[in-house]
């Protein structure tokens, strides 16, 4: 197979045939029970959350859901969460902390939704609060990027102890199109931007941003989900025993870009 260019990965990450958040929830966990709403304004259907069993371990699962069919995708707002989605996620994380459950997040978004309502209801504040609160959550947080990891809207569910990426997922501070249009005033130079942004899973791993790249050789099969289940079970069992969890999470982010200043 020829080596894929970063922009090919962007296209793969966006492919509507890829498994979505709910596919992971339904195939990896047992007895998923969905919990709705942020208790403040609404239930954001771009983010699905609830409780489930990972093997025998009770966990809280949160996933950004893009949907498959056109109708589903519209209902899920194409996986672009509003502030309510991030507030629901935080509510469920706090609940997980109360009951000592690990938190597992699946991330797949082009970014937090850009809209008037989202701004009126504090999109920036909602993401900021998640980042702040996740930094001291007393239970393990493992986040997996399964498709697109669009900037702050993805980070708001990825400020955890372990961040993994599927082989063809991407994680970026800005979309390649956005970057090209700002820097070169030409969105068609997205391919060039994608190469420069270092947004592939392997780039993120070599930059020390993520811990693991998950192979997609059998994506969507039973074996694929089994593999992820085993990885998750092993990791949350280890993290749950770690008395220094919160301190290590602080250091995990603390060291990124720490060498630039004196």
């Amino acid at each position, binding site marked *: 197979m020829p080596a894929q260019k970063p922009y090919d990965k962007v296209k793969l990450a966006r492919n509507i045939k890829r498994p979505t958040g709910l596919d992971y929830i339904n195939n990896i966990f047992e007895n998923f029970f969905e919990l709705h709403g942020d208790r403040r304004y609404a239930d954001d259907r771009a983010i699905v959350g609830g409780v489930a069993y990972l093997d025998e371990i009770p966990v809280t699962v949160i996933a950004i859901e893009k949907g498959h069919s056109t109708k589903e995708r519209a209902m899920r707002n194409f996986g672009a969460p509003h502030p309510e989605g991030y507030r629901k996620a935080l509510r469920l994380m706090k609940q997980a902390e109360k009951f000592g459950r690990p938190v597992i997040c699946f991330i797949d978004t082009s970014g937090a939704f850009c809209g008037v309502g989202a701004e009126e209801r*504090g999109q920036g504040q909602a993401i900021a609060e998640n*980042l702040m609160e996740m930094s001291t959550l007393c239970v393990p947080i493992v986040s997996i990027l399964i498709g697109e990891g669009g900037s*702050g809207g993805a980070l708001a569910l990825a400020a955890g102890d372990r961040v993994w990426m599927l082989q063809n997922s991407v994680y970026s501070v800005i979309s390649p199109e956005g970057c090209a249009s700002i820097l070169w005033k030409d969105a068609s130079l997205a391919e060039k931007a994608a190469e420069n942004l270092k*947004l592939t899973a392997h*780039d993120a791993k070599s930059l020390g941003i993520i811990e693991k790249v998950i192979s997609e050789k059998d994506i969507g099969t039973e074996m694929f989900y089994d593999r992820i289940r085993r990885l998750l079970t092993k990791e949350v069992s280890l993290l749950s025993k770690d008395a220094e969890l919160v301190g290590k999470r602080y250091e995990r982010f603390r060291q990124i870009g720490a060498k*630039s200043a004196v």
Partner: protein
Amino acid sequence: MPILKFLKPKNELEEGGRMAAPVQSDAGEPEKKCPNCHKDIPLSKLWADSLVCTCGYNFRMKARQRIHMICDKKSFCEMFCDITPTNPISFPGYTEKHESVRISSGENEAVICGTATIGRQKCCIFVMESYFMMGSMGSIVGERITALFEYAVEHHLPVIGYTVSGGARMQEGLVSLMQMAKTSAAVKRHSDAGLLYIAILTDPTTGGVTASFAMEADIILAEPGATVGFAGARVIEQTTKKSLPKGFQTSEFVLEHGFIDVIVKRSEQKKTLCELLKLHNGGAA
């Protein structure tokens, strides 16, 4: 890479942004045209009024001018001011861009940090610089702000922070995105230590800075008429294909929607900060 010491500003007033170049009036005194009321204002008057026009329009201010305006005379002691310029994702042209901005802005990065007294009350202070790549947050900005909050925890000091930012610095890719999580964790530690953090949002405060330390303060003030938001207005217009309501994403808009505490005029900011620090017992736990 050499360690670059702080470069002295070349000139106080620079072109660009909201600061149009001064023009010489007939009377001989340099004037500036206000983009809001279109009147020519004598520069000396503008300076005396902290760069606020008689119509209330706020011209952009350089970070060091703000420090001069807010901190007690000669109290500011700069920290974390040396840098080793890096290009963490080897973004083409970034090293050159960084170097040229260092020269044109007279600063070596987009935030200035240190300790100072405000009304004789000691605090940590950071002021972002709009003249440095529009205050975008790269690894040096994230590192300085994190280090400042950590210093404040260690020394039981409150933090005062002036924000101005176009968001994360895309030329640093994911490394810049991660600064949002890093600074937020540092703010949380400071908050959990029972210490006071006051943010003052100035024009513009957007993107990754809004979605991290700008919105995480105990008390959030804003300058009148500043742009405050997450997504760029143009992007929202393109996404939703609707024209935006009047006054969208301004200080007044975020006040109305409950995301900031109060709008404070530039001339009142020092007094307000003094009083808030005093009420919090100098901010110390």
